């Protein structure tokens, strides 16, 4: 039996990637797309050979097994809570929400409705990251001292630079991916974070943080840094990166999650860019979501994982305000 999936909103850039993956994974039936932009939803529905839905309710009334929520961050709560009433499986784009209270409410509503909530952290499915996890599980690195990490990218513009809709700029956008990986690697938590944040550093015309550097300590003793900046200029060969440099007692492990790639020079105007090859991390995420629906198992990346990652981003903003490291409680 094909798994029936609906897409709620085309706000997030990842929505188009997920649609491409949904078309590639066998035995998935895309039942419809809703977006509040009528033209966009109709053009996209036509392109992916599915129905354009007039409202979120219209999409949910088609009884999909799973809904993927790709709306702007501030709308996640409303959309996930609506979906949870009718849809048993939900995949929500990161960050889970713009406040910890919203994130917790989403988890509670899903639990009460019996809906399983997964957060979209596709980088776990990058093959080099998965291999790093296996090496860490096998204790190949010995005692790990530090993790120097980057998740740099370009400035995505649009609602991402509107604090009301996004909850923040580069720091909320790019803290959560790597924090999720580190929590997952060691089944641990970030216990303290210090952050230097730049407001309008690359784009003074925008009142939003676009530079961020976090220094953190994990409960297992590992310390590290994370550059979350939207520092990749227009015309750069890649949208950005996820790079981890792990130093341990037995050796050094370097992970560059979005390699390998072809080098392509093409287009008008002509430019050189990286063209990743092999199945994308997004493909792995969609595979995993479909597998959860088919087997009825628990999500591999839970709402709690999404909330814990968000709390670190929020603590980074707080640290930049106070100029002090911020401790996070984990009861």
């Amino acid at each position: 039996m094909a798994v029936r999936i609906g897409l709620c909103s085309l706000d997030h850039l990842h929505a188009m990637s997920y649609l491409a993956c949904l078309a590639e994974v066998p035995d998935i039936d895309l039942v419809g797309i809703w977006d509040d932009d009528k033209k966009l939803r109709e053009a996209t529905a036509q392109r992916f050979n599915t129905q354009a839905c007039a409202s979120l309710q219209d999409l949910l009334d088609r009884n999909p097994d799973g809904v993927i929520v790709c709306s702007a961050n501030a709308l996640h709560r409303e959309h996930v809570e609506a979906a949870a009433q009718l849809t048993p499986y939900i995949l929500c784009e990161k960050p889970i929400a713009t406040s910890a209270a919203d994130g917790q409410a989403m988890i509670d509503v899903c639990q009460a409705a019996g809906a399983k909530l997964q957060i979209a952290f596709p980088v776990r499915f990058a093959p080099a990251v998965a291999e790093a996890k296996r090496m860490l599980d096998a204790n190949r690195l010995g005692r790990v001292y530090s993790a120097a990490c980057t998740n740099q990218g370009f400035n995505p513009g649009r609602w991402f630079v509107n604090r009301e809709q996004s909850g923040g700029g580069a720091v909320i956008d790019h803290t959560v991916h790597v924090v999720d990986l580190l929590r997952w690697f060691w089944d641990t938590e970030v216990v303290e974070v210090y952050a230097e944040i730049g407001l309008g550093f690359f784009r003074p015309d925008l009142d939003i943080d676009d530079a961020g550097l976090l220094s953190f300590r994990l409960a297992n003793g590992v310390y590290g840094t994370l550059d979350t900046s939207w520092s990749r200029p227009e015309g750069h060969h890649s949208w950005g990166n996820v790079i981890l440099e792990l130093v341990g007692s037995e050796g050094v492990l370097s992970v560059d999650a979005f390699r390998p790639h072809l080098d392509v020079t093409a287009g008008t105007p002509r430019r050189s860019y990286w063209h990743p090859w092999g199945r994308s991390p997004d493909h792995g995420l969609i595979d995993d979501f479909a597998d959860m629906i088919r087997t009825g198992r628990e999500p591999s990346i839970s709402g709690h994982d999404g909330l814990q990652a968000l709390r670190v981003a929020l603590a980074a903003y707080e640290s930049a305000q106070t100029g002090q490291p911020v401790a996070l409680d984990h009861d």
Partner: protein
Amino acid sequence: MHRVGIVGAGSISRVHAAAWARLPVELAGWHDVVPEAAVAAAERWGGRAFDVLEDLLAASDIVDVCTNVAAHPEPVLAAAHAGKTIVCEKPLARTVAQCEEILAVCTERQVPLFVAHVVRFFPEFEAAWRTVQAGTIGKPGMMRTVRAGGFPRMGGGAAARRYADFEQSGGVIMDVGIHDIDFHRWCMGEVERVFARGLLEAGVPECDHALLVLRFESGAIGHIEASWAHTPGRTRTHLEIAGDQGLVAWDSRDPASLSWRTRTDNMPMTRNTLQEADHPYFAELAHFLDCLDKGCEFRVTPHDALMAVKVSQAALHSIRTGQPVAIADFRD
């Protein structure tokens, strides 16, 4: 469920068996001219060991021929006459005439034949081909590939002696260069002529190397370096295709996604880890099964396999004669 019988229990058969194990087929068993090898393979991978080829054929729906190239025609023809679906490792056969005979019998018996030109299933090569297909680089004009490693010593056993025996292996062009010849044809269309130089008759023991210049019917030009003369270790691959609107390139020396350096030895272990479904030998057999079940054409047609051998043989002929060789008129 399809029953798969594997002929030839050497190194490549183990790669195939690992891929079959992840696919919805039943492994019927093994046949090898060395019966103990079939027994050992059956113990490791499952299925029965068959002393007689015909008994394996009778127990199989799909016959996967993994013998050395000189020993391809006998089991392939036997399987075709028995009406079995055939997977055959590359190259299809040692000579053009043998390939033509195999194609004729498979056509007559209406037997599907898939030749495992695995490079078309390497994700980096497939992605480059897709880039060309999508028109991203415009009309392709120059194409260059390199596949360079050390001599295949294979632990010094019988397989290594076969590689060193040109009559059996066809040397580096038939074993290595043929990958690129097939990939060039896939991207650029039919080859018009080939000119080649190499170590074919240079008398260097346990070493072979060739540089091929191809001209395609489209007017495009191709370059292939095929080497058993480089240093041992991981084979280096390089690829670039230049079109009138752009360029696509890849090199296995590019930094990898994963790199691991231990404190005791500073030799980095670097690797581009793949998602399971992207492993090329799995991908090619999954593709084969999918096409078989849906009745659609294989990515590698029997004609493609024949032409890869024909261009390879023409390149060898060019080295011997010092002359360019036109493909359309070429005979062994």
